[in-house]
């Protein structure tokens, strides 16, 4: 069980990826910029060295405002990328 300190840090963290995901929708917070955007992959920078990649088919960004992106489409996978380690 997560303790109170970790929970607060997680809630107010602005440099880490926070993703709410289903097979048809991905809600990503703390978006700094879109690194890559096609209909099969959307790569988003969340922190200084933190990236999130959504892979799937027919991907679209249904909303992009106030550091939050909502992606829709057929989502197949999500990856959290850090430059030090190629894959996490």
């Amino acid at each position, binding site marked *: 069980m997560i303790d109170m300190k970790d929970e607060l840090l997680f809630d107010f963290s602005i440099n880490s990826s926070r993703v709410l995901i289903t097979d048809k929708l991905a809600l990503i917070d703390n978006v700094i910029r*879109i*690194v*890559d*955007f096609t*209909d099969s992959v959307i790569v988003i920078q969340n922190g200084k060295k933190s990236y999130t990649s959504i892979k799937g088919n027919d991907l679209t*960004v*249904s909303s*992009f*405002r*106030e550091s939050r992106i909502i992606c829709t489409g057929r989502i197949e996978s999500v990856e959290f990328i850090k430059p030090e380690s190629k894959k996490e």
Partner: protein
Amino acid sequence: MREELTILIEGLEIHKLLDRLNSEGVALKGIRYISREKVQFICAKKDIHIIDKFARNKYLITIQEEKGPKTKLTKLRNRKTTIAGVILFIAVIVYQSLFICKIEINGLNNINDEEVCKVLEDNGVFIGCRRGNYDLEAIEYDMFDRVKGIAWMELHDDGGIVTVDIVESVKVDITEEKEPQHIIAEKEGYIEEVIAKEGRTAVEKGQFVNQGDILISGEIQNRMDETLYRYVSAEGQVYARCIYAFTDTENIVIEEEVRTGKYFPGVYFRFGDFVFDSSCFMNSFKNYFVNERTLIDIKIPLPVKISLIGINETAYKERARSLPEIERYAEIEMLKKLKKNIGDTGRIVKKDLQFKEEENIIEITGIFEVIEEIGGEEPIIYERTEDQDR
């Protein structure tokens, strides 16, 4: 709801433009990847200048679609027939629900429908009147009182249609045996013609008769026995030359209502029971008359009347009339009086008008000879004897 634009961006590294727009607070939605060089998205119309500012000459911007209430209104404004159709539809619905749009009268054979309509109208039920402003039960009572020959009736007000169901009473002809009677003179005059259908002619052509004289007698003497009489109901027409004399005075100087030339325009508007008449509160004239030019006066689909009115001020001025004018006027007045006395059956055969001028008045004497029917029924009152009964 806000005004939105669907925009197609063409260029390289479009995601950089999207990042920039997001950092500037431009809300984007429906971002759809088409190809590496083409992305489509939806944004607020007010943000287009920000997009334009950052896109500059690096990206090609195409506005594909506009959405929002203002855009819809603009589009709708161009579809005049649709607007007219919607207004007409609403008008019909309003009319159907608020006003009487039809009156159906069923079951009339002998009764005149105009008579029934008149009773309805007097009670506030007519095409275009507001629904519910009447008492159906009171109308039914009034209908029974004023329209003869109704055996049963029922009034319905169903969705703007007033239905009047009437069952007429059946007329039964009861031929009564007429009592013996004379035809007597109702007016005095010189007999012109006697047409006796039943009874004995008691007067001759040219004979002067007074009021009450027997013209056609219902008492017929037995030819065999002159002491016996048979009594019949005398019938027939008796025409006589009657003389009517009238005197009247006319002022030479009369007061006439003339226009002063002061005028102001106004508007009359009626919608159902609501009436707006600008002459009611704008009019400061003491004496005036109103002329009206009706622009619209319809009952279907809505009871609307619009008129332009002109309020003309008038004043009373004295004017001396010429003798021919007075003569014409006096003759008309005399004929009106005569008409009241003789009704529609009389025929004027001679008229003589004499005018006598005094100080400020003219005295008129009119003598008319009229041929008219003067016969009237008078029952015979007699005592039966045993011999007569036999």
